[in-house]
């Protein structure tokens, strides 16, 4: 049976051999053919030599979740060959480098083998060991183009664009593509039953990773100070911000920078710098992962209690401790919601894809300044570092930053008095002032006990007065965070609630279950504290599946702590092995419970 525009394949190579450019060439070519495509990079915590994989899913319906079975395996790494062979579905294909004989013990009778002498061909055509290795990887892209029916003119155009300033590289890449292409066409029936046919489903879309999109959000929100400590998988966020700033934030006359990026000595200092900059009136942020959040805890409490805006991007990776730095997870939900000692509760935002990563980044700065508090943006490695197909980002030029209640020097001049922590508007949000502006605006920010006038206190009532007001303030933010995404199914009595990067797997699973006759309402929360709509969703369903990517059902715990929902009503579905969640994880979890109940 032909499977046109609906299949998945996986490429196994070694890290640092240039396979990344071949893989992105393949992704882009499929995307430009108008066919929905997603790529998942499964990479090691290593620079060179360890195994790495790239998974590409082509789906005409636009499903983007990871799929665990592969129609075609491009097995180019002898170190993982044995395992890779096992991952091909029965009736699938396996491409290998036939320069070396294949170990007969590794062959499967139900898989078709496509041997291509990639190394031989490239050794004959190219000189220099590095070039031979790099071109070998480009050659497999050419072979795939023939086997999958890719549009070769698109590949040619992509190489021309990519190497517009290096024509020699363009030529050698094109030669390598042609080598693979011609060999495959001559020796195998091309295209395979799994293949591509041009569509028009990507015209208004882009391919982008979430960290780049978040960085764009920071740029557009008007962030001027970024402080950070390098950490996988958050590094590319600040690096993207830096390159955008270098492009868009140079004073045209003086060539000086309208931004400051500070690479701190550790994550503690990074968040301290963000808090210092926020206190002084800049939009400031840091990008980090779980280990960084652990270190930042003390400072986060200071910003919460001293009421200083700060934006913290947590690109989650598999914990605890160092965990698996190059694998994805949603393990920091609890940590961020109540970070730091003492009574705290923080605004958390949860994007599900790069488009939301862009929009939510902007929202984070507005919320941080409006509520004068740290705001967490929790994405994950899958959202942050993988290439996603999303509708083009749009920007409303009428947008202006919400700087919150900051008194100007003019307002201070005419004001009778100013007290930093006084709730004069009854909304829990006091007025603040910036240093250097007006003598009447002076106040003392402190993490020690203070009263509503900003004075030091050890008086229990005065202390509680401020602490309770901050609680009211943060609870009010539930109405200001992005609302949940809801999808209702007619007649559904059960619900499914999830967060962030589980979205793609959940919607695909729900479609599949609907086809099997099971109607389930869907909610994806996008902000914490949860609003009333979340409580209502839980209350209005007899059973709610809570889908998330961590061992301890942290989202479910948050729901139990923050709403009056009974524990036995919330059925946990979890997957936390470090790969992006697949639809089958959700389907299996739902069915297991329903079968038990039946």
């Amino acid at each position, binding site marked *: 049976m032909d499977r046109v525009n609906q299949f998945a394949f996986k490429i196994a190579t070694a890290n640092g051999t240039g396979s990344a450019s071949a893989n992105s060439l393949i992704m882009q070519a499929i995307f430009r053919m108008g066919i929905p495509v997603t790529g998942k990079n499964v990479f090691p915590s290593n620079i060179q030599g360890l195994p790495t994989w790239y998974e590409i899913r082509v789906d005409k319906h636009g499903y983007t979740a990871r799929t665990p079975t592969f129609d075609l395996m491009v097995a180019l790494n002898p170190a993982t060959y044995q395992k890779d062979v096992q991952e091909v579905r029965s009736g699938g294909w396996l491409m290998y480098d036939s320069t070396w004989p294949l170990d007969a013990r590794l062959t499967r009778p139900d898989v078709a083998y496509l041997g291509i002498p990639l190394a031989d061909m490239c050794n004959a055509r190219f000189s220099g060991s590095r070039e031979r290795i790099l071109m070998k990887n480009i050659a497999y892209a050419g072979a795939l183009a023939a086997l999958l029916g890719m549009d070769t003119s698109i590949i040619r155009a992509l190489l021309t664009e990519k190497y517009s300033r290096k024509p020699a590289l363009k030529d050698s890449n094109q030669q390598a593509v042609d080598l693979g292409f011609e060999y495959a066409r001559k020796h195998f029936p091309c295209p395979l039953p799994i293949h591509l046919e041009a569509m028009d489903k990507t015209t208004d879309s882009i391919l982008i990773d979430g960290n780049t999109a978040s960085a764009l959000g920071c740029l557009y929100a008007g962030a001027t100070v970024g402080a950070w400590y390098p950490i996988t998988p958050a590094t590319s966020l600040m690096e993207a911000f830096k390159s955008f700033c270098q492009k868009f934030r140079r004073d045209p006359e003086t060539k000086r920078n309208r931004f400051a990026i*500070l690479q701190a000595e550790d994550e503690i200092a*990074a968040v301290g710098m963000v808090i210092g900059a926020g206190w*002084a009136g800049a939009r400031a942020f840091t990008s980090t992962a779980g280990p960084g959040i652990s270190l930042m805890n003390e400072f986060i409490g200071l910003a919460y209690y001293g009421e200083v805006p700060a934006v913290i991007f947590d690109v989650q990776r598999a914990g605890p401790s160092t965990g698996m730095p190059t694998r994805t997870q949603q393990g920091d939900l609890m940590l961020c919601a109540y970070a730091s000692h003492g009574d705290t509760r923080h605004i958390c935002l949860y994007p599900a894809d790069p488009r939301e990563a862009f929009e939510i980044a902007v929202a984070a700065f507005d919320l941080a300044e409006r509520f004068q508090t740290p705001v967490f943006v929790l994405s994950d490695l899958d959202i942050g570092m993988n290439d996603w197909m999303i509708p083009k980002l749009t920007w409303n030029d009428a947008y202006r930053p919400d700087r919150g209640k900051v008194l100007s020097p003019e307002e201070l001049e005419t004001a009778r008095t100013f007290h930093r922590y006084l709730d004069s508007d009854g909304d829990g949000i006091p007025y603040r002032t910036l240093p250097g502006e007006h003598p009447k605006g002076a106040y003392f920010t402190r993490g020690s006990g203070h009263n509503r006038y900003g004075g030091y206190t050890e008086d229990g009532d005065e202390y509680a007065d401020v602490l309770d007001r901050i609680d009211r303030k943060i609870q009010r933010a539930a109405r200001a965070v992005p609302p949940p995404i809801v999808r209702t199914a007619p007649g559904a009595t059960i619900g499914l609630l999830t967060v962030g990067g589980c979205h793609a797997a959940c919607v695909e699973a729900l479609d599949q279950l609907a086809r099997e006759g099971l109607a389930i309402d869907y909610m994806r929360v996008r902000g914490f504290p949860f609003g009333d709509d979340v409580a209502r969703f839980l209350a209005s369903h007899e059973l709610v599946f809570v889908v998330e990517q961590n061992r301890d059902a942290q989202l479910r715990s948050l729901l139990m702590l923050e709403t009056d929902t009974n524990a036995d009503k919330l059925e946990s579905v979890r997957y936390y092995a470090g790969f992006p969640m697949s639809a089958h994880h959700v389907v299996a979890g739902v069915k297991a419970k329903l079968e038990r109940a039946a």
Partner: protein
Amino acid sequence: MTYISKPTVHHPALRKNELGLTRRDYEGAITTLCAGCGHDSITAAIIQAFWELSIAPHKVAKLSGIGCSSKTPAYFLREAHGFNGVHGRMPALVTGANAANRDVIYIGISGDGDSLSIGLGHLCHAIRRNVNVLYVLENNGVYGLTKGQFSASADPGSLSKKGEANTMEAIDGCLLALTLGATFVARSFSGDKGQLVPILKAGLAHNGFAFVDVISPCVTFNDHEGSTKSYAYTREKNVEVVAADFVLPTAAITTAYDPGSVHSVVLHDGSTVRLRKVDDDYDPTDPDRSYTFIRERHKEGEVVTGLLYISPDSSDVHEQNQTVEMPLTKVPYEQLCPGSAELEKLQRGFR
């Protein structure tokens, strides 16, 4: 009680500076430190320095960590914003604040526990970045608020109040700063206001990290016989090697010096520091020789004080990063956001 404010009614005969302000206008709340605490003398010197320089108090931001010393920003410049952060990590806060608004004048107050133990790393990196701040380390060799434990600046053999001898090597903030490439390193004594005030003024004018270690005896826990941070010990062992005079760019130089003994350093803002060498062997513009000199004298039991090192061509973090002259907080949003057309254009590269 740091919220008790001082009366603001002044005697009409009090001297006024160029802004028409008296020293009282540079004061803060009444101190809650122990009577006789060295830190209060430093506070008085800070008030004097800002007053003499005619800096409007609200143009200043004062930041600190945690500990006795870190309480003192409440006791000066009541019209300046204050930030009492977390223990040891004020350098991070001031780095961020300075990145955001480079026009504010920053003073950081820290102690030896704050700077040399829990926050040692942050201090080192703020020095490396050369953040433009006057950083005052009020150094008493002891943890006062937790009642008398040794700090990292306690000398080996120095005795605690209970008679216990310190066994570990001390961290000398000035030597540390010199090894890290600091551009301004000074040491003074809280009991010598005449020496300290010009150093603080020069530190404020310095474009970069001005590190000032001030020996500031703790009258309650570290002022006894056997302590090397007591008033008596510091008075006896303190040796001034360089005396600094600070001259504003506009001021006429009236004092005549013997030309052979004076070294003038012109600072970023045009002001001049005139260094009078008390010790002929000392060169305050050579960091390596300064380092060796301080160490040698320390071995002989002397506490070398003065403006120990100053680099006239200091380039601060903003110069290193080529930040715009205008504070980032003042750059209009229109100059920060590229707009929808650029976004559209940019995304052509994402296909």
